[in-house]
């Protein structure tokens, strides 16, 4: 039996981080191919409420691990709890959404299980446990590799843009357990400087308007258009490096990977690391003064021109059409 265990992530307010639903779909695909059961684990000070939410999403069992030492989702607290559970329920696959928290904790869980791990998986290939493989990006997505992992337990993180969110499907069982607290916490979160925004979250928005070096740091036209469209604001690496916008807005290989219905890139030249973070978008618009900019190679619609002129015009046109 090849059971699958997905680690659930909560948002700072304790509610479900939606990315978990994408990971549950990856888990369900593996379970279907290998004939195993899909399990999930919630770890929190009081895991019960969130476990009751997760049980609705096609999961056989949600394990609710509660404890004061789990109040913060730190790798050294989470790893032993997940690893012990994985062994207890005979999980052959342990996965998480490839969020920052998922990327932080899953390799530590894998280390504890002496398991190899595939990061940012894009798809599950094969039809049984014997031939199960994953595809994953390498070289900033310039190459898609198919990989086979040969440890008894296999760990993975799933790229959220590549798996749809799990839908509600019946009600699974919630099983409470009490993970042992480590002798000493190795890490504590002292503070969190949140990027507050009334706009939709970058990774969940239907439309994203991103600005690059061409903005020279002036994001007013970007934000104006974004607000007219109800869109999220994104940025290129150069913009975040210069401190013009918070790092949390960076779209790209090492920032957020997004796949909205519409992505508008303004003043972004289109380095491969940026393109890696947005090329899954349904429709891509590029606006750039340099007609030779690489961004035009991935754009469905390219406009060679000054963003300071084009974006306000576009904003006015969107407004007029409402």
């Amino acid at each position, binding site marked *: 039996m090849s059971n699958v265990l997905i680690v659930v992530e909560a948002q700072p307010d304790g509610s479900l981080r939606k990315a978990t639903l994408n990971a549950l779909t990856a888990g369900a695909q593996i379970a279907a191919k290998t004939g195993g059961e899909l399990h999930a684990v919630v770890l929190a000070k009081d895991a019960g409420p969130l476990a009751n939410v997760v049980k609705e999403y096609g999961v056989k069992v949600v394990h609710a691990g509660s404890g004061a030492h789990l109040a913060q989702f730190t*790798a*050294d607290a989470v790893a032993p709890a997940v690893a012990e559970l994985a062994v207890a329920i005979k999980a052959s696959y342990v996965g998480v959404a490839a*969020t*920052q*928290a998922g990327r932080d904790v899953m*390799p530590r869980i*894998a*280390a*504890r299980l002496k398991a*190899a*791990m595939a*990061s940012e998986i894009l798809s599950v290939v094969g039809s049984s446990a014997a031939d199960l*493989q994953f595809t994953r990006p*390498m*070289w*900033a997505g*310039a*190459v*898609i*590799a*198919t*990989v*086979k*992992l*040969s*440890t008894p337990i296999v760990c993975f993180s799933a790229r959220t843009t590549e798996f749809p969110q799990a839908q509600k499907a019946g009600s699974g069982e919630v099983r409470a357990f009490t993970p042992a607290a480590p002798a*000493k916490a*190795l*890490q*504590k*979160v*002292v503070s*969190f*400087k*949140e990027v507050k925004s009334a706009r939709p979250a970058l990774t969940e928005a239907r*439309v994203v308007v991103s600005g690059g070096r061409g903005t020279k740091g002036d994001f007013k036209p970007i934000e104006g258009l974004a607000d007219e469209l109800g869109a999220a604001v994104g940025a290129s*690496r150069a913009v975040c*490096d*210069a*401190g013009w916008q*918070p*790092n*949390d807005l960076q779209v790209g290989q*090492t920032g957020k990977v997004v796949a909205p*219905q*519409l992505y508008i890139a303004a003043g972004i030249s289109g380095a491969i*690391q940026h393109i890696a973070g947005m*090329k899954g978008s*349904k*429709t891509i*618009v590029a606006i750039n003064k340099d007609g030779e900019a690489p961004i*035009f190679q*991935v754009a*469905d*619609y*390219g*406009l060679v*021109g000054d963003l300071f002129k084009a974006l306000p015009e576009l904003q006015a*046109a*969107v407004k007029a059409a409402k």
Partner: protein
Amino acid sequence: MPIKILVTAKRVEDYESKIKVNAQGTGIVQEGLKYKINPFDEIGVEEALRLVAKHGGGEVVVVSIGTKDVHEQLRHALAMGATKAIWVNHTGPLDQMTVAGCLQKLIEKEKPHLAILGKQSIDDDQNQVGQYLAEWLGWSQATFASKEESLESEAEKTKQPALKLAADLSTITVVREVDGGLETVECTMPCVVTTDLRLNQPRYASLPGIMKAKSKPIEEHTPASLGVDGASKIAVTKMELPPARKAGIKVPDVAALVDKLKTEAKAL
């Protein structure tokens, strides 16, 4: 108090390289590629040098795993100012467990206070080794280390370390890039830190640094001599290019763009 820090210098393709898959789909075309130190590792070397400077001296030990070609990356780190270089001689595929295993054994020998690694290498893009290493050593981990000040700030220009070590080296305070903002964590020492993009801007090696680096000895090991299994548990069975996007068009003006978005893409 002088501190000892272990850092890494993986040899990777230059990030501006155009990566192509070979005709058999078994690997990438090596011809014409330039190789550099993994940019995240270089940030780690820089941060280690800044910490040592701030804390009244110490040692920075740099490790690289691979064929003799990695000497180039070790010399690069030595030229930046690292004090000692270790080469783990290995040919062929290498997974993250072998890398973390070798680093664990070297750390048990070298006994540094701290290890600073790149959060990922820009070839495999796995983002795993630091976390495996921390678990196997029983150390704390602080991944995706960053800072609140920008790379244009005064603190950056004066090469201040962003990682904050307690004077008695009992704790380290790290600003991390997490979803939704920046998180500050306090970790017990010893600790494995992995670097994100905006921790610092690495220095250029000075000419005297480059000259000095040429004559520094490089200590040699192998996974076997360290007692580590060198067989990869991850087999790449196929490599291919990502699906290409359908070629787009240029539009002459905003009105044409709006029209296309409405009627063709139905995105507005």
